[in-house]
Every structure is written in C-alpha cells, then in structure tokens.
C-alpha cells in the first residue's frame, strides 16, 4: 500500500474536482437556441404566395388522446404572430414545452397541418399534410417543415422535398408548386 502525504492527497483531490468540473461543462448539450430538450420541438413555417392576399396555418398536435391545436394567420394588414422568423411573407408555429409534455409518453403521435389561402374574399384549403411515424423518426429528430412555392433557384439552405399540396379548388390559382420541404 502506497502511503500518500497529506499535501499529495489534497493535490489529487483538486485534480479530481477539476476533471469533474471540466467534464460537466463539456458534456453539457450544445445550446442551439432551442434549449436542450429539442427532441419533440416542432417548427412549422408557411410562406405566402405572392398571388394571394392572406394565409392561415392551423396545426393539430395529437398524442394518443391528447389533442392540442395552434394557428397563425397572415394578412396584408396584420400578422397575429409576433414570431416572424425570416424576411419574407411567412408565419411560423412552434411547439416547444407543450410538445415535450404530450409526445414522449405517447405511442401514436401525429401532427396535422392545414393551410388556407385567401384571395378576393375567397378562402381555399390545401390538402391536409400529416406528419406521422412514416415521415418522422419521433424522438430523434427535431421536426422542421417549411411550406413554400418551390423554385429551387430562390431557396437556400438544406432541405428535401416531401410532397406537393396544391389545392383542389383552383379559384385562387393552381399552386402546383406549393411544396412541403423537410429541413434536416
């Protein structure tokens, strides 16, 4: 058995505490602005086509029997959301703590997105886009989708095209390129 002097013991303890302190700081999850509980956070943004006057996005979050909904509208006069993420005509809905509450313990998570356009006092609905297990690996990915008219020359950043959701009612326009883009 090696006998250590009191001063050596103190030195070793200090080293051990320093190592623990450093480890704790380095093991801290990187704060990316979404907090450290980002697994079930969702960010959904819809971009208004130039040819429509207004737009609404309505999102229903469903976890087994728990249902929670949120919506945002864009009009030329006002935008009822404070959070406008970018410099364009868009509205964004974020689900943070609420989604963290309802999704982790649930087995049947589903998010439904309904978007409507307004033009000349008409309101047309786009097909409902459903985010479920077939699209998202729940719990591993932050859920980020963008709804926008696809013109690759005018969109920057990384994304994949999930699908197109043109409206059946074409009285405001066909919007065949209105796409659902999934962000990594």
């Amino acid at each position: 058995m090696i006998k250590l002097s009191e001063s050596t013991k103190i030195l070793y303890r200090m080293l051990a505490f320093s190592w623990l302190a450093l480890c704790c700081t380095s093991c801290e999850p990187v704060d990316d602005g979404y907090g450290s509980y980002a697994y079930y956070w969702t960010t959904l943004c819809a971009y208004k086509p130039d040819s429509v006057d207004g737009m609404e996005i309505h999102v229903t979050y469903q976890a087994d029997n728990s249902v929670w909904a949120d919506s945002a509208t864009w009009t030329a006069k006002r935008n009822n959301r404070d959070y406008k993420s970018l410099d364009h005509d868009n509205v964004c809905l974020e689900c943070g703590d609420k989604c963290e509450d309802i999704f982790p313990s649930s087995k049947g998570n589903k998010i439904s997105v309904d978007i409507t356009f307004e033009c000349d006092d008409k309101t047309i609905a786009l097909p409902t886009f459903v985010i479920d297990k077939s699209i998202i690996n729940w719990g591993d990915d932050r859920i980020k989708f963008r709804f926008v008219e696809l013109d690759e020359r005018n969109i920057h950043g990384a994304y994949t095209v999930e699908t197109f959701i043109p409206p059946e009612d074409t009285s405001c326009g066909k919007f065949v390129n209105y796409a659902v883009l999934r962000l990594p």
Partner: protein
Amino acid sequence: MIRVLFLVICLASAAIGGVYDSKPIPKRKRHTVTDFIYPYFEVMAGVEKITTKIKTESYTHWYHDKKLDEMVYDEDLYYDIYSFNGAGPNIEAKLGVQLIKHVAFFLNLGLAWPIGSSHYKYYSLDKEEYIDRGYIYQPFFGVGTKVYPFVQWLPVLDGIFIGASLIRTYANGSWEDYGMTYDNHEDGYKLEAGHLWNITGHYFIGITANMASYSCSTSDAYSHNAFGIGQNPTRPPDESKTKVYGISLTVVFK
C-alpha cells in the same frame, strides 16, 4: 658522357621552352548574379476565341413548367445556365527575370475584350432564353514561367519556347443581373508555345499560340446556409469552364 650531354640538352630545351611557351595563368573570373539572371520583359497583342459554360445541377430535380402549370420531374435538370461565345483582341505584358537564358519567371497582366453573345437561362427546361450581344471585358493577371529549351544548343531551334501561367481573370459578372450567384472571377491556367527571332541586341520578335482554361465557383457573397427565401448560393456549379484559344504577336526584351 653521351648520356650526360643528352641530359643537359634536354634540360636546356625544357628551360627555353618554359620561357617562351608559358602564358600567364588567367585570373579566375568572379561571377555575379547578373551573369545568370537577366531582366525579362514581354508584350503580346493578338486575337482569341473564347467559350464559357456555367450551370448548376438541380438538387430537387423538380421543375415548374409555367406554360402547362404543372410540376415536372427531370433527372437532368440544371439551373442558372450561362454561356458565352465570342472572339476578339487581347493584349498582355509579362515582367520578370530570366535565368541562364533558358528559363523566365514573370508576372502576367493583360486584358481581353471579346465580342460575342451571352446566353442566360434560368432552368434547362425553360423555352425562354435571354441573349446579350456585345463586348465583355476580361482583365487578368497571374504568374508564369517560360522555357527556351534550345538556346545555345541547337541554333536552328534557338527561338522556340513553351510556357505556362496560373491566371485569375475577371468576368463582367453580368449573370448577377439575372439572379445568378456565380463569382465574378475565374481561376485557371494558360499554356503557350511559340518562336522568337532575334532582331537586334536584346530584342526579339515572334509569334505565340496559347490556350487557357478557367473555372469559377459560387460567390462567397451568398454563402448563407440556413433555410430561407432568396438567391440559392449553397451548391457550387456543376459545370464551369472557360476555354480560350489565341494567337499573338510577341515582342521580348531579354
């Protein structure tokens, strides 16, 4: 006795020969840098033919056919397609040094202004194409080397040379007017070969054939990677090449 006499005659001959035939040993010349390095100056004026093609491969491969108003999936979809085809004059100056009359190192500085047509197309499936006709000005600079392999070896081939330069050339960036995000400079190399004839003293005149290849990339000015609406900067051009073929009258001082 005869042997002694013969020895005396030999020694006397050697002494006399040594007196009259010996030459003073020349002093060893001290070489200076200027014995190996000479100033090198060259001016060229000529004509060139230039073709440029730049395009970016689509990532999504989805194209909005606005005439039919429907989405089309195309594996060979490209966008931001620019091309230029033209010909025109150019001038160039080279300033540097020449080593042991065989190799020259220099800085290039030049200007070309070919006349031709620039074609702009947003997507490869577009029917619509924009065409601008006129001059484009292309200043360029670089560093290069030129080798005269037969100097002081084969007099017949004395004036033959080959050369290579690394060049940065500036295009007019007119594609920005069409929302394309390519950089306004291109980098590449230039190869040349020719023959010089001595006119007088250090002056030579000759002819040079040259070939150059340049390429450009996406401008750093659009280097945002976060998702957003705006010009698409994230993907480099799939194809970017400028080919130049020219011939010039060359005057060299070396």
